[in-house]
């Protein structure tokens, strides 16, 4: 009985300690619009704990946000589908999501605004942060061989199936014959090894892990096939924040752009910071292929992506990039 009491007490104490870090709900920055310096603006950013968002952490560490009077609190979500409503409802001030999710949200009437680039494909075949992998002993040599195959994607009816179809189409195959199944990234290795799927589109670190463990090999680099130097994901905010506090939004954007440029030029710093917010160990962090982090959004690539999404029936009408993009 005493032991249980002790356990309960300890947990409660730890919880108080943990709770102090958890509750990152940012105050409404609109209050700071009066020009009175009441301390740095508190912003909460909704993210997924993946390689792609390293620049934000790097930027915070290097003080790019602090120098612009912004204090950043990060909150991790399981996926883009949580981050978008989180931004819409004001729970997050800014969020990170892929471009297709932006198109879908916009089409559903959600009031969001893209503010800054997130991350891009490296643009180089054979060396990108995501690829289409097949089992090592598979007969498949290129994307067109995957006609009629079962392919694993982490989310369906989103960016992955769009770009994989592009890979197959580019290689001269018919993408409509392919069946996609939803498999979370960590389970793709087992799926390939067991022959449950014919191919899987995996991003880092799973791309590296699958190859390291001798389970799979890449046959196509779908980010590259979709469009040159594809902007994969972006940072966005709600339309209401843009209206209430445009100054904060532009300062955040500037800080973000500085962080992106810094990350692009300092890959070693990126690799060092990865283990601090993901569960990657330093060795894996040194092996993974990093995305590209240009400060500017590649708008042309987004238009190309929109075309693909329209073709695949994901969108019923072209998105209004003028109102969605900065």
């Amino acid at each position: 009985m005493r032991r249980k009491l002790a356990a309960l007490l300890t947990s409660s104490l730890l919880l108080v300690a943990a709770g102090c870090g958890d509750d990152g709900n940012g105050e409404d920055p609109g209050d700071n619009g009066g020009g009175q310096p009441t301390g740095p603006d508190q912003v909460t950013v909704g993210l997924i704990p993946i390689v792609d968002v390293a620049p934000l952490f790097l930027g915070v560490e290097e003080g790019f946000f602090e120098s612009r009077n912004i204090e950043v609190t990060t909150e991790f979500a399981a996926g883009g589908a949580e981050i978008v409503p989180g931004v819409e409802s004001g729970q997050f001030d800014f969020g990170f999501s892929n471009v297709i999710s932006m198109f879908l949200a916009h089409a559903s009437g959600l009031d969001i605004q893209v503010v800054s680039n997130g991350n891009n494909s490296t643009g180089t075949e054979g060396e990108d942060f995501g690829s289409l992998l097949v089992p090592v002993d598979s007969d498949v040599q290129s994307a067109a061989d995957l006609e009629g195959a079962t392919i694993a994607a982490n989310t369906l009816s989103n960016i992955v199936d769009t770009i994989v179809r592009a890979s197959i189409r580019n290689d001269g195959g018919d993408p409509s014959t392919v069946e996609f199944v939803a498999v979370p990234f960590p389970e793709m290795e087992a799926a390939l090894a067991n022959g449950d799927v014919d191919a899987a589109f995996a991003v880092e670190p799973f791309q590296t892990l699958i190859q390291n463990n001798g389970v799979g090999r890449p046959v196509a680099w779908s980010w590259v096939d979709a469009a040159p130097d594809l902007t994969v994901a972006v940072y966005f905010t709600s339309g209401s924040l843009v209206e209430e506090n445009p100054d904060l939004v532009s300062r955040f954007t500037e800080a973000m752009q500085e962080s992106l440029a810094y990350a692009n030029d300092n890959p070693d710093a990126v690799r060092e910071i990865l283990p601090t917010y993901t569960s990657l160990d330093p060795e894996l962090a040194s092996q993974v292929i990093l995305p590209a982090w240009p400060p500017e959004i590649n708008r042309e690539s987004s238009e190309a992506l929109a075309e693909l999404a329209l073709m695949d029936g994901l969108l019923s009408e072209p998105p209004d990039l003028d109102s969605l993009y900065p």
Partner: protein
Amino acid sequence: MRVLGIVAGRIGLLFGLPAILVAIWWLASADSEHFLFRPLPDILVAFRETWLGPRLVEDLLPSLSRLAQGYAASLVLGIGAGVLIGSSRTLRALVEPVLELLRAIPPPALIPLIGLFAGIGDTRRIVIIIAGCVWPILLNTVEGVRAVDEVLADTCRSYRVRGLSRLRHLVLRSASPQIMTGARQALAIGIILMVISELQRTDRGIGYTVEQFQTSFRYPEMWSGVLLLGLLGVALSLLFRLADREILGWYHGLRATQKESR
């Protein structure tokens, strides 16, 4: 006249509160501009368009089929193992701590692990359902078998009722009320796991469809799916009630007589 009054009263009690609640919902949401809480009329339209069509067969059926298979397998495993364990004191003492540990693991926590073994297809989803359903059935069966009345057991021994006959008429019948309790709990858990097993990991099913709507930000359709799940839960609950009355009719009657005589 009197009868009419009584019938009207019954109907009023049955539908009164639900009708009021639905009316409130309708009125409160009718003009909703909120991105998530869409007006009830929109949700109902989405319901008709989404579910009363090919999706009924393409999504509803696979989900229900997996639930049925998982539940049936849980019954067989749970009752089978339960009878074995419940009949032997030694066996019970041996496995009890291990079972306590295994059953205490919330089934959703096992999902990433099950994925490593059971592939990505229906097998895996059914295994997830079994992982949760088997425990209430197993543990309640053990309890039920353990508590077989001594007098009845002795009577069976005197009359040399053994083997399959004893199993059927003494053990299973005595334990059946307890087993049914376990089966009812298992059904509720089974529905939950049916939905969970489809999240993020399939391409057909109710849970999957609702999730897809959520991730595509199509909220009226999402709510229509929630509504469907509610109706499903109610329907299965009713089915179970019917089965319970069939199988345990003798027990309920017995209990009723006992209560009266108290």
